[in-house]
Every structure is written in C-alpha cells, then in structure tokens.
C-alpha cells in the first residue's frame, strides 16, 4: 500500500507526467512514420495464419540453424583480427557447432513436443492417468489453438531441460568430431 502510494505520487509528479506526454508523442511520431499495410491475398494470409498456429520452437530452431550456416561462417571467415590459420579453424568449428546444435536442438524439441501431446489428453473413460500428466487443471477441450500452443510451450521447456545434458553428451563431442573432420579435410584441400 505504502509502495503503491509512493509509486503513484512519483508518477503523478509534474515532471514525470510531462516526460510521459513527451514519450508518448515521440512514440506516436515513430508510429506515424511507418506506412499502413493491408493484406488481402488469401493464399498469403492462409500461410501466415498457419505459421502462427503451427510454427513451434522446433521449426524455429531449424530456421535459426539454416540461416546460421549462411551468416556465421561468413562473419568468422572475415574476422581480420585473427590470423588465417585461426580463421580457418574457427570457420570449421562454427559450421560443426551449427550442424550439431541444430540437429540435436531440432530433434529433441520435436520429440518433446510430440511426447507432451501424447501425455496431455483430457481425463475421461478409457484414458489412463499417465496420459493426462501434462494436462492443466480444469481444461476440458484439447483441440483448441490455445491448447496446441500450450503443448508447444511445455514441450519446449521440457526439451530445454533435457538439452542441458545433451549439450555435453551429444553436442560437444559431435562438434569436436565434426570440427576435426572439417579441419582434416581443409588441410588435405590446401595440400592439393
């Protein structure tokens, strides 16, 4: 209560009120600078809505990995602050890390989201209790968009917990193996 009154007295102070008005006017000017856009292409809207509904974190991880392959090796290859040898190794390691991280990141997220779907059924006749372990209390319909998004979120959180371990058990050794393979291949190419 005391904190609330202190907060409101600070926010209602003339200086604060003026700052808020100025901030609002800056925001409005920024918004005015952006032109209006209206979409009417049904095909485009269908795909956009589909992305909003079905694009879960596993697909986002895949998109991140694919675009990372196009940008990160390029950034490392043009890092003039290190010598050529280090640059080559760092490019190889970056590519290896992206492949290992994307593979495990995508597969574990995908698997966890699918598993959560199996274990978040609505309680009822013929549904074993273990199949409702991830169903939130009071939810009666598991066919809504909101429930699908919940399954994606829960699957992602479980996947992140698992990946703390697979980061060491799979990603790190796989990255090391791929880096060595790429470096070996690069050296053979250089000899030619």
């Amino acid at each position, binding site marked *: 209560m005391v904190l609330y009154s202190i907060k409101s007295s600070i926010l209602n102070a003339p200086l604060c009120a003026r700052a808020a008005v100025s901030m609002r006017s800056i925001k*409005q000017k920024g918004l005015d600078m952006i032109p209006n856009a209206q979409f009417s292409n049904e095909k485009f809207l269908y795909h*956009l809505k589909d992305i909003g509904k079905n694009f879960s974190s596993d697909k*986002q991880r895949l998109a991140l990995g694919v675009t990372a392959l196009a940008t990160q090796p390029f950034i*490392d290859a043009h890092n003039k602050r290190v010598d050529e040898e280090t640059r080559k190794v760092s490019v190889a*390691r970056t590519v290896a890390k992206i492949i290992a991280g994307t593979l495990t990141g995508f597969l574990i997220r995908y698997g966890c989201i699918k598993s959560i779907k199996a274990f978040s059924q609505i309680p009822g006749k013929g549904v074993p209790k273990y199949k409702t372990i991830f169903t939130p209390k009071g939810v009666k319909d598991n066919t809504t968009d*909101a429930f699908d998004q919940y399954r994606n979120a*829960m699957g*992602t959180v479980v996947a992140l917990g698992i990946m703390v371990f697979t980061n060491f058990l799979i990603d790190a050794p796989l990255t090391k193996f791929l880096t060595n393979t790429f470096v070996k291949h690069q050296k053979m190419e250089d000899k030619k």
Partner: protein
Amino acid sequence: MANLFSNFKSVMYKNYGENPGKMLVHTGVLGWILSAMAQVSAVVFNDKISKEQKSFLIPQEIADAAINIVSYYVITSSFKNLASKLVSTGKLSTSKIRNYIKSKKVNPAEYIGKLNTNIEKDFPEIKGDYKAFKNGVDVVASTVGSIISCNIVTPILRNEYAAQKQKEAILRMHGKRQKNENNDVKGLKQPSKLSMDNYIRIASMKYPSSGLKV
C-alpha cells in the same frame, strides 16, 4: 510438489496458450540462460583447467553469456513488440479486419495507427480473425528477430569482445614477462599464471564461436 506442478501447468497455459510469439521469445531466452549455465559449469567443474585459468575464464564465460542473453532478448522482444503494436493499432492489417472497422462507421484516419487503438478490445466480434493474423505476425517477427540476433549481431559483438579481451590478456602477459625478467635478475622467479600457448589453445577453442546454443 504435485500442487506446484499443477500451478506451473496453469501458468504455462494462461501465459502462452494465446501468445506463441511471446513463448518463442521467452523459451529462447531460457535456452540461452541454460546453455550459459552449462558453459560456466563446464569450466567450473573441469579438473583439467587450473585454478588460475578458472579465475580468468569464469568471468569471461559470464560476460559472454550476458552478451548472448541481453542481445537475444532486446532484439527479439523489440521485433515482437513492434509487430504486435503495428497489428493492434491496425497499421498492419487484413482487408477483412479493415473493412469491418469501416463498416462500424469509424473514421480510419482518426483510429488507425493511434497509440490508444486496440482492435482486440474495441472489436471483440472479430477476435478470431484478428488473433490468427496477430499470432502469425508475432511468430514471423520473433523468428526474424532471433535470426538477426543469434546469427548476425551476437557473433559480431562476441568477436569484438573476444578481440578486446585477447588484446588485454596479451598486454597483461607482456607486463608480467617484463616483471619476471626483473625478478630473475634478483634471483626470484614468479609462477606464471597463463602462458601464451595456453591462452591461444583456450582462445582457439572458445573464440570466436563460443557458447553452444541449445
């Protein structure tokens, strides 16, 4: 314990059930935090790294993690929040939503693109169409933001930071070598903390592509 899990499921359902863009941003940040914790603990619990090297590497790992987490959150949530604002104020809209607003005799010039405008609250009748469109825009914005953050901004910032740290370490080692040479003259030898070879070995493994993203 069971109650805690039940509450956790309810919180997840309420917060992310209708907001996939927010979920992608938050789980992305959580992913970076967990992978940073893994990286730091890999150094802390590694017996092959000496105590002196740990005192040098742990703060670097933490700073590196801070760069990853802050840049990811700031860029991705900015993209997502801007996209949300554009949709909620009607700046970014569909013909169906725009026509509906017009049919309600609202002057578009006075309504569209104003900070106070909130289509979801003002026109609950078209909530279904509006939400589907907004979720799509949010997810696209979050993904574009995360791609720019993880694949462009963070590697550049990390390379800059790594180069800066490498420069400082080399300067420090030169200073130490100078000091050791002076001490040698007096017959006293100081134990070296981090050799140049060691530094290069660690740096080549760690920089410029450190931090395994989960």
